[in-house]
């Protein structure tokens, strides 16, 4: 069997095994409703968010304690982002943007715990998030602006001859948005975790183990940064797309 052959070699590379989705209870196939490790860690992210934003602010203190300060910091950051990028009328969609930001942030950070599962490394999850934004923003654009929304693709400031060409480019870039939006997040999280796993496999050899451990530490630091930055990037792009829907035209 292949298993025994690999174990004999000593170096065992399974960098992608950490992303396998397994049922939490018992075995069997993964049906759409089966509680899996993905379910567990997404639910934990939800619990952490509720813990911070609801439990942390239960004092409603004028002078906040630590948890409340963090909750207010998150709130203020996303609120300011939505207001700065989309303007005052975008604040109506602030709870949704806040939901996205909190979920991605906490899923990313929880994924950094040893033995945890990184739900945002799965393209199914990030594509769903990106498509929710894409479809929502497109529908919103047509509902708010009617056919004026198509002005997004018709660059009226460009020379008339160039406009059809630009329209094609704009149209393509518009439909590429959800792809880049989702793959950016999943790719970053997956790559970082896989690299850590590869270094961890090297740690089995005593001679390279110190280098490997230092490398894991460095990668871990980088991943902490990536976890925050990718959540931020996803959110600010959502805000930008929302702005395009509310105020089309260049």
């Amino acid at each position: 069997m292949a298993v025994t052959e690999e174990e004999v070699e000593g170096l065992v590379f399974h960098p992608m095994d950490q992303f396998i989705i397994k049922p939490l209870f018992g075995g069997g196939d993964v049906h759409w409703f089966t509680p899996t490790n993905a379910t567990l860690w997404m639910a934990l992210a939800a619990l952490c968010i509720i813990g911070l934003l609801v439990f942390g602010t239960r004092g409603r203190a004028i002078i906040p304690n630590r948890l409340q300060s963090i909750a207010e910091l998150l709130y203020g950051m996303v609120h300011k982002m939505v207001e700065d990028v989309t303007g005052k009328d975008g604040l109506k969609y602030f709870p949704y943007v806040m939901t996205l930001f909190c979920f991605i942030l906490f899923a990313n950070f929880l994924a950094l715990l040893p033995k945890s599962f990184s739900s945002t490394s799965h393209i199914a999850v990030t594509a769903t998030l990106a498509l929710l934004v894409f479809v929502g923003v497109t529908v919103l654009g047509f509902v708010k602006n009617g056919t004026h929304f198509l002005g997004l693709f018709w660059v009226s400031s460009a020379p008339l001859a160039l406009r059809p060409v630009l329209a094609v480019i704009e149209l393509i870039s518009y439909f590429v948005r959800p792809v880049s939006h989702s793959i950016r997040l999943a790719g970053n999280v997956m790559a970082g975790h896989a690299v850590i796993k590869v270094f961890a496999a090297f740690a089995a050899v005593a001679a390279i183990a110190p280098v490997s451990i230092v490398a894991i530490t460095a990668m871990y630091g980088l991943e902490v940064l990536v976890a925050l930055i990718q959540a931020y990037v996803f959110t600010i792009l959502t805000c930008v797309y929302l702005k395009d829907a509310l105020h089309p035209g260049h």
Partner: protein
Amino acid sequence: MFSLLQQTAPVVVEHSETVTHTETAQAAAHGADAAHAAADAAHGASNAGMPQLDISTFGNQIFWLLVVLAVIYWVLSRVALPRISGVISDRQGAITGDLMAAEEFKQKAKDAEAAYDKALADARAEANKIIAANKAEIQKELDAAIAHADAEIAARAGESEKRIGEIRASAVEDARSVARDVTEALVQSFGGNVDQNLINDAVDQRLKGALQ
């Protein structure tokens, strides 16, 4: 991340599904857990080793993601965000209120200072008025006293003048009687006849020039 558990699960990369099934069947003999692990590995490995591309788990992930997102959205929009926004606006209100109260107190202090200054100015004016009044009164009394003194001095001077006049008159009279007596004695000693009227006239004649 460091899912060490998963390392125990064999990854069957380059085997066809039929091989996987036979493996599963073999593993089943060892126990149920091994069978699950093999099945999981088969799921994970069916797409060139990337669990991300295993379409059979997509429905599950999307379903649970939507559930989790709905829960988070519901809690955030119903409880957390209104509460935090309330707290922040309360704080803003408290700060604005405090600033306004401070402004009010500042205004009060300014008013109090103005009132104090005004009271001070009033007191000073009052004092000046009293001083002026006292000065006028004293001046009046002084004037009256001076006038009184002047009158007294004048009266005294008049009296003295009168007395001096009297003294002078009596001195003239004395001189006249002495002169008459001396003249009478001289006339007698020269053997002349004493004519009282003549002597008196002569003495008066002489004195008129000397005593006036």
